[in-house]
């Protein structure tokens, strides 16, 4: 049986924040008498993650995804509740715990700006107590997986964003951690660089059985990497489960575009009891529930003179978008 590597129970986190009124008067007031209030950004959440799982954290900006990730890796103290990661209390930041994890942030970098990435790799290797031979072996292996070579010897400031991100990954993985926390790792990367990064993460997970916790606003990252997603809305978990189940629940119908040979057939189809989305000349778009798609198609093909037929899945961004604004779309699951 696969062990739970992350166990979170009734976790909450509050921050003190100050607010300021606009204008000079507001600024002066803010300077002399700052109004602060406690804001609960994470509200009583619980979940477990098994070893080797890739879990995506979904949520709108400010939903609390990054705060959860930062509490999991021990950067921020929780206000209430408990977290166990690999058997450790993360906020104690014990040496053996830190050797087991890594955090990669798409918008922050740890590489030394004026030097080639290879210098940062060897510095990290010494921090993780790796000897030169072992470090060299790991750099070679990871650079092959990431498909970077010459870039290792070019100053970081002269690398493209994609090359820099690959180097950041290598720097963060040199100690071969078995839990990866990734906060928007593909932020700002072009389509090819995003694809390569996803490919690498899949390969790394497969080869090392590492657990990956990922936040991203690019749906492609989530759909191609994560089987399971945890949706966070205003600090609370609104869904925790399989991604395909979420998609099915959020999008129970498919759209079928039918091109008929004549306009008469279009009228016949319109009056045959299906839900019509729209019709233009000899084309008609029907909305059919997922669970009756096979029988409906059979009926259509047997009874109508069809020239062509297209089944359209609703765009995933649109579907997931519904999760991010729970006010407009309340998710109810069994």
């Amino acid at each position, binding site marked *: 049986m696969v062990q739970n590597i992350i166990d979170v129970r009734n976790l909450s986190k509050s*921050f003190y924040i100050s607010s300021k009124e606009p204008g000079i008067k507001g600024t002066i007031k803010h300077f002399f008498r700052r109004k602060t209030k406690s804001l609960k950004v994470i509200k009583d959440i619980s979940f477990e993650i098994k070893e080797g799982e890739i879990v995506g954290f979904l949520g709108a900006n400010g939903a609390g995804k*990054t705060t959860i990730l*930062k509490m999991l*890796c*021990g*950067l*921020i*103290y929780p206000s209430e509740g408990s977290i166990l990661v690999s058997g450790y209390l993360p906020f104690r*930041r014990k*040496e*053996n715990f*830190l*050797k087991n*994890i*890594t*955090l990669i*942030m798409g*918008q*922050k*970098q*740890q590489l*030394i*700006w*004026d*030097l080639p990435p290879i*210098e*940062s790799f*060897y*510095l*990290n290797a*010494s*921090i*993780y*107590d790796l000897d030169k031979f072992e470090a060299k072996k790991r750099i070679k292996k990871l650079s092959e997986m990431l498909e970077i070579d010459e870039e290792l010897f070019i*100053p970081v400031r002269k690398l493209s964003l994609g090359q820099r991100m690959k180097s950041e990954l290598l720097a963060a993985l040199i100690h071969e951690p078995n839990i990866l926390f990734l*906060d*928007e790792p593909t932020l700002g990367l072009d389509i090819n660089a995003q694809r390569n990064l996803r490919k690498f993460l899949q390969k790394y997970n497969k080869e090392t059985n590492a657990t990956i916790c990922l936040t991203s606003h690019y749906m492609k990252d989530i759909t191609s990497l994560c089987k399971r997603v945890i949706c966070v809305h205003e600090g609370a978990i609104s869904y925790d489960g399989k991604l395909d189940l979420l998609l099915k629940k959020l999008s129970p119908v498919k759209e079928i575009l039918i091109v008929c040979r004549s306009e008469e057939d279009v009228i016949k189809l319109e009056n045959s009891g299906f839900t019509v989305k729209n019709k233009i000349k000899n084309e008609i778009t029907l909305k059919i529930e997922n669970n009756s798609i096979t029988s409906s198609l059979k009926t259509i093909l047997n009874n109508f003179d069809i020239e062509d037929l297209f089944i359209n899945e609703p765009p995933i961004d649109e579907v997931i978008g519904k999760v991010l604004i729970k006010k407009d779309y309340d998710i109810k699951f069994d």
Partner: protein
Amino acid sequence: MNLKKYLKVYKKFLHTSLASELEYKTNILVDLITAILSLVGSIFLLSIFFQNNGYIGGWKFEQALIIQAIYTILNGITNTWFNPNLTEIVKHIREGTLDFVLLKPIDSQFFISLKKINPSGFLEIMLGFFLLLFCIRINQINLSFSFLSLSFITISCSICILYSLWFFISTTTIWFVKTWNAIEVLRSFLYIGRFPLNSFSFSLRVFFSIFIPIAFITTIPSEVFLGLSQLWKIVLEVIVASVFLITSRKFWLFALKFYSSASS
């Protein structure tokens, strides 16, 4: 603590920061010229103060020059280690890159205090030592073992006090986010350390001994050089340095509990 590992990491710190600095040759050259001009300017200023009377606070010019030499050494250490590292703490906290430091299996205070060096500060340290040797000669100081030991102890204590004060202020960034001004105030107080403590009024002497212990930083080591120091003062400096060092360490560990990391 694994000493061997820390030495290995420090060797890497030296290597990477030297390599980074050497990327900008002109900057190093400008820093070197600035260090020389700054020392010449300070000695010139000191000589003007001594022109009328020959004595300030009971100190002769040749004796006061020792304070200048110790100040130059300490300023060199400040520019070599404290300035590039401790001012960076503010940046680490504001931009949230402290996250990377805290997630490394190494002491975070060690990492942020020693990661960088500014090689041009070395010249200042060397100039300070040359000036000190010159002072030893003109003041006809006898270089005995006890003298060297006491000098080493008092200068080390001065470094610890200076580091702790600076580190303490930088740590408050965790709550206040911007503390540049406080560090600038500390630096300007350090300029006062170029003059003998006795040259100030009683109230200022108390202030610079108790609240901001500038007196301990330059005057006591200088008194050791001139054989004027009393044992209680040296013991007191050791105690003050230890208290400052321990407090700054405890304060850092306490402050980390309030670190909320920058938002992404």
